[in-house]
């Protein structure tokens, strides 16, 4: 699975995700990627999210929209909301994987509950970064 989230100079957010699914999946199996609110979500007032991981669990816990709901209704920061969904909601229910997310203020959060996640980010005026493991 691959994905991207962005905030442009007008302050608008967007998310995109694309996948081949999982190796040796049953023909016709669809995971969280093409389901808005599960593997892909964007709303200017809160955040944009793209997920990667155990798709069935991302669907059951509507991972993307849950992060936005925590920001909207609990007043959590993007990182607090994303950490809770990935490290508790998903992790505690056999949902390994992670998300990349950008908030309306341009902050970035990229939590994952497995050994690594191929990821990269950049903010205007800063150098781009790429990483695979936690360090």
């Amino acid at each position, binding site marked *: *699975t*691959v*994905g*991207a*989230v*962005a*905030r*442009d*100079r*007008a*302050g608008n*957010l*967007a*998310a*995109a*995700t*694309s*996948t*081949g*699914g*999982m*190796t*040796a*999946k*049953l*023909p*016709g*199996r*669809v*995971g*969280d*990627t*093409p*389901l*808005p609110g599960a*593997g892909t*979500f*964007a709303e*200017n007032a809160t955040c944009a999210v793209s997920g*990667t*991981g*155990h*798709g*069935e669990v991302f669907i059951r816990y509507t991972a993307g929209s849950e992060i936005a709901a925590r920001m909207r209704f609990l007043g959590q920061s993007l990182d607090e909301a994303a950490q809770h969904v990935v490290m508790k909601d998903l992790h505690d229910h056999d949902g390994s*994987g992670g998300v990349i997310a*950008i908030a309306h203020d*341009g902050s970035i959060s990229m939590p*994952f509950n*497995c*050994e*690594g*996640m*191929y*990821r*990269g980010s*950049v903010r*205007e005026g800063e150098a*781009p970064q*790429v990483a*695979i493991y936690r360090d």
Partner: protein
Amino acid sequence: MSTYSLAIHGGAGTILRTQMTPEKEAAYKAGLARAVAAGEDVLRQDGTAMDAVTAAVCALEDEPLFNAGRGAVFTTEGAQEMDACVMDGRDRSAGAVAGIFGPRNPVRVARAVMERTPHVLLIGPMALQIARDAGLPFEERDYFFTQARWDALQETMEMRRKGQESDDPARRHG
């Protein structure tokens, strides 16, 4: 005027350090860097967030190291079925496709669904027709094939035949 931000991912899972060589790590990081650059180029020129995420994901779909587009994994029947989605934070408009094969960049088909139809998610022949109507490029089967993904399918099927398939979370990951 805001400042721009962009983040990308190329998947997650049990990416064991013991299986990662310096050469492979460098190749993955180069692929990630190209995707970041593709998205940032759009944002730097005052492009939209939607155009930036589309460009970044296209770069990742074109990179055979990642599981999307070229380099997608195989089903139990040895086929490739791809899913993609875009969502615009301005108005929650969204487009998605599932189970498609042929378009070079499934994310562009998802965007065509959003921009050219009143629907959110399309599957089957009409999803491909939307791609043709939008003039999006298609590729033959050989373009999407990678030996590593084919070998992974054979290994997984052999483990299933022997009742040895592990609970490795990476096997459930997209």
